[in-house]
């Protein structure tokens, strides 16, 4: 199997990241130790912090390293000290999970946050709130009006958290222009390692640590720092700039894939609005998502139905449901996501397999109907 098109679940690690990590792993220091080994580890970690900050046009001192994007989202929602939480209907499970009692903000048929609903909901209640809106959706790639949402939130004294996990290398991120008081990142979605993420804070924003213990991360996140992971994250963050230059190529590949699959009878989802260059969400009218994903796998192509975390779950995606998509269509959607290693050959391959499955699928569907 060599056709990997599931970059929104996991971007293959870049060689420079791996090499930097291998070197870091050969070193012994605990960055919290005061001796030379510890100090050297700390320097490497602080360089990585600068690189991650630069990725989001933020200050290094505002970057808190965590063990994942999920932990960063949890820290933001639980640690910001706001009792009232408002989240968009299309947020990732790692935002929905820590906010079980949140008010859900609707999205329109294209999957874009309803700003009027946000305004109205905030106006209803004066309790200081936290609004969480992702920068780009992991299933459809649809880009959210985060800066506008932030202006509305701030006008009501609310904080804005932005889960920007899918954006690096695909979309320039500027924490200040987005107006995000808290912004989450994950290394392994941008060619960095699994096991490391970051929460970036706005100027002077206090956060209550969720892990008690040592004074690491200036008391905002306890636990010995994941040195090699952090170093790898730093390299990946620096390389994400180069990925931005690759956006037109990826967009062309994605558009070709969509055009051809559409001509074969595929239904595109979320394609009428600005979205990430690399994401295609396509329904095959004749075959349920789960069956498609397995058939693609047997044909040597890795794609997914919804997010990786929900792989084991059954039922249609909450994202597509929130968009008001017809249930039949939603349950036949598959996400194809491209990235730095994707070639024309991969795209041709997935189109071929899609075409094969479509012809098989229509046969069996016709059988059922007949």
């Amino acid at each position, binding site marked *: *199997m060599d056709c*990997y098109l*599931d970059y929104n*679940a*996991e971007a293959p*690690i870049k060689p420079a990241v*791996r090499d930097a990590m*291998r070197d870091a*792993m*050969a070193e*012994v220091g*605990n960055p*919290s*130790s*005061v*001796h*030379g*080994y*510890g100090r*050297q580890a700390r320097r490497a970690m602080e360089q990585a912090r600068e690189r991650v900050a630069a990725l989001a046009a933020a200050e290094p001192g505002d970057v808190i390293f*965590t*063990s*994942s994007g*999920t*932990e960063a*989202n*949890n820290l933001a929602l639980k640690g910001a000290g706001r009792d009232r939480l408002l989240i968009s209907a299309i947020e990732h*499970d*790692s935002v929905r*999970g*820590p906010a*079980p009692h949140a008010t859900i903000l609707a999205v329109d048929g294209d999957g874009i946050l309803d700003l009027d609903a946000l305004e109205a909901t905030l106006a209803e209640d004066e309790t200081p709130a936290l609004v969480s809106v992702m920068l780009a959706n992991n299933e459809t790639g649809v880009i959210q009006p985060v800066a506008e949402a932030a202006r509305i939130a701030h006008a009501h004294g609310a904080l804005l958290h932005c889960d920007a996990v899918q954006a690096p290398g695909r979309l320039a991120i500027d924490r200040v222009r987005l107006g995000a008081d808290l912004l989450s990142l994950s290394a*392994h979605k941008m060619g960095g*390692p*699994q*096991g*490391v993420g970051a929460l970036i804070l706005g100027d002077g924003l206090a956060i209550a640590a969720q*892990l*008690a*213990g*040592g*004074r690491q991360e200036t008391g905002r996140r*306890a*636990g*010995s*720092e*994941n*040195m*090699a*992971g952090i170093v790898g994250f730093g390299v990946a963050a620096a390389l994400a700039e180069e990925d931005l230059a690759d956006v037109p190529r990826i967009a062309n590949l994605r558009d070709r894939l969509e055009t051809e699959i559409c001509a074969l009878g595929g239904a595109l989802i979320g394609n009428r609005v600005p979205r990430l260059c690399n994401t295609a969400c396509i329904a095959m009218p004749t075959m349920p998502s789960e069956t498609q994903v*397995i058939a693609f796998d047997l044909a*040597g*192509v*890795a794609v*997914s*139905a919804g997010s*990786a*975390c*929900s*792989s084991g779950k059954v039922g249609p995606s909450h994202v597509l449901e929130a968009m008001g998509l017809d249930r039949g269509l939603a349950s036949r959607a598959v996400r194809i996501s491209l990235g730095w290693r994707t070639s024309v050959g991969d795209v041709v391959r997935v189109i071929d397999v899609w075409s094969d499955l479509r012809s098989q699928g229509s046969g069996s569907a016709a059988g059922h109907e007949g």
Partner: protein
Amino acid sequence: MSSTEARHLGANTGAGANIKLPIYLDYQATTPLDPRALEAMMPYFTEHFGNPHSSTHEFGATSAAAVERAREQVASLIGAEAREIVFTSGATEANNLAIKGVAAFECEHRKGQRKRVITVITEHKCVIETCKHLGRDGHDIVTLPVDGDGIVDLGDLAAAINDETLLVSVMGVNNETGVIQPLAEIGALCREHGAYLHSDCAQAVGKIPLDVNAMKIDLMSISGHKLYGPKGIGALYVRRRPRVRLLAMIDGGGQERGMRSGTLPTPCCVGFGEACAIAEAEMESDHERLAQLRDRLLEGITANTDGVTLNGDRTRRIPGNLNLSFTGVGGEQLVAALSDLAVSTGSACNSASVEPSYVLMALGMGSERADASIRFGIGRFTTEAEIDYAIQTVVGQLSRLRG
């Protein structure tokens, strides 16, 4: 150390071997990654890069299989079942999850009848801080003292434990003194009262034989980078029979059977698993070798200088730790003089602190002696030549400082 910073010594060390300075003697802060563990990890960075939770395609399935194999390796080292292992980002997270998770479940599902949580004064900072956090939430926190050797008195525990005790948290091996606590006896007491026993075994796993069933441990925290595995990975053992219930602290995709959400770092899990397998195979021989090195270091120092005291029990300790107090010198002065040795005065997490170690103070010593204490941590890659160089340095610098 970069090559420019490292200095090399020649034949004057006796063994004639090149010694990289400073000599790393801080194995309780973190251990070097075993090259065998690193080798096991490398394919999972590049060839097998899948998200282990993408169970529907081969890339994900390959990663998932590697994670499950690692889970078995971790479980095997402590006599547990693979499905009792919850991967975390490290022991700090595991300790937080164990203590807060059990307390949260008790409050939400059992009306919080059991309010008492018992811990020990020499626990790692993250256990103490987590217990304080529970104390602010209305739990009744009892902190047990230790004796002059650093050991918990079972009589004290027996007096403190009652049928309202939810959890007892006692570490297996202390990070500063290397002292081993009597976990099996503590486990038996806990079981009698229906209290859970949690043990922070970050310093114990792979160093001393542990068996969660024989010791009646219900929750155990493990760290990858303290047993020659990678940083950024650890585990919490959560007993299934009788079942320990806890609430997750990190919510989301529901990974780790709902107890800990977030994408698992496959290479780190693999390296951690491999490190556990190596520890299981080599614990005995490592133990023997380290005990010899430790004895050599202690004898070498005490034979050539006066005013040295060993902190912590003489026999109930791991061989890789030697915590010594020196009379007639100040702590900071001593550490500065020992710049050829990467040693520490206490836990890495508190290294920025200028306070004397609370662990050593708990053994009954004054702040002056606690302050003039050094932790020598030796491990798998420590050589005899390094120990001899360390002896020379300590003895020489002490005589210089004491004038």
